[in-house]
């Protein structure tokens, strides 16, 4: 039995409704996807074993994340708003709370190959980031979380000898330190809005952070100030994605583009990946989440 099949059958026992969704997600995927998933999960299992954890622990974390999302989604369907409005509140309850942050991040790690939007957005990054590797001498990742993007960037950007990975949560940094080859990485524990640096960066990645702040334009302006004039930024952010730590609600892709334009960035290329089996337009109409990703320049 593959690790992926093992995971799904354990989820089936604990949360059959969610298992249906994972099965549907995976049924449309080709052999290449399955091979990549299996390689990722093999590494992930090693990472778990190294830290005295096992697959049952990981699945428990993942299903807690799913339970949180289910509750937030049900509230969102009625209120049409995210339940959080204060960054300070989310910081205290979530980022600064190892008990919650640990299962939340472990759950997101496992979601990489169970949710098609996470898989496709990483593929988009892997396909397009190499176009910029020649010009990239230093690299910053904001809100690096578990470190999945960072791991790929270390492979892709061969000219960079020091990667900077910043996160507001100590728990995220601890997980990333163990998940990536950390010899080349400088970890910074800080709120991005308070991060000061003499140098500017050639490439900045910021996956799923824009929806975690009260003022996304202010956050992108901060990234602009950290980016050199010819530099490239890669960002991702979801629409209509209620979660315990999401604050700023983008209702459709156009609202994201507007924030990008207002902060003075230009879009080089973009992608939209719906979280259910439907087109992005249909998803926007129904209030169902779409993952948005884009490469930006000044």
């Amino acid at each position: 039995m593959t690790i992926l099949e093992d995971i799904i059958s354990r989820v089936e026992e604990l949360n059959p409704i969610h298992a249906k969704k994972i099965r549907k997600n995976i049924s449309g995927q080709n052999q290449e996807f399955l091979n990549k998933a299996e390689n990722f999960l093999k590494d992930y299992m090693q990472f778990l074993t190294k830290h005295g954890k096992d697959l049952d622990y990981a699945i428990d974390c993942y299903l807690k994340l799913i339970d949180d999302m289910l509750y937030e989604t049900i509230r969102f369907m009625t209120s049409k708003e995210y339940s959080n409005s204060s960054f300070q509140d989310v910081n205290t309850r979530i980022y600064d709370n190892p008990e919650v942050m640990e299962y939340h991040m472990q759950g997101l790690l496992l979601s990489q190959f169970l949710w098609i939007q996470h898989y496709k957005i990483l593929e988009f990054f892997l396909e397009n980031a190499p176009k910029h590797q020649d010009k990239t001498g230093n690299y910053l990742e904001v809100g690096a979380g578990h470190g999945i993007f960072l791991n790929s960037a270390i492979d892709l950007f061969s000219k960079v000898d020091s990667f900077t990975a910043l996160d507001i949560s100590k728990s995220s940094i601890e997980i990333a330190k163990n998940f990536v080859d950390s010899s080349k990485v400088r970890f910074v524990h800080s709120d991005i809005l308070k991060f000061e640096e003499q140098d500017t960066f050639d490439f900045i990645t910021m996956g799923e952070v824009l929806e975690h702040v009260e003022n996304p334009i202010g956050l992108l302006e901060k990234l602009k100030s950290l980016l050199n004039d010819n530099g490239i930024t890669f960002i991702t952010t979801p629409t209509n994605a209620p979660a315990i730590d999401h604050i700023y609600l983008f209702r459709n892709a156009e609202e994201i583009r507007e924030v990008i334009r207002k902060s003075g960035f230009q879009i080089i290329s973009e992608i939209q990946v719906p979280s259910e089996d439907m087109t992005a337009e249909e998803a926007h109409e129904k209030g169902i989440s779409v993952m948005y990703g884009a490469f930006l320049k000044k």
Partner: protein
Amino acid sequence: MDKAEILKKLNDIFINTLDNADIVLKMETTAADIEEWDSLRHIMLVVEIEKTMKTKFTSKEITKFKNVGDIVNSIEAKK
């Protein structure tokens, strides 16, 4: 409202939300018994049940819904 009445109301909501007139709910019915009962429709079901029954479930209740009986019992306990 007793359990049987709640079950009957839920049956109507399931028929409408899942668009399947053949559904006959029992206390033991799970998502494995009804093909259309997937995660997206599950959310729509809970939202619809809250609206119709004029009730609001806690996160603890919602995450414990493993079969129709769990939903019936939750509603009954609130009345």
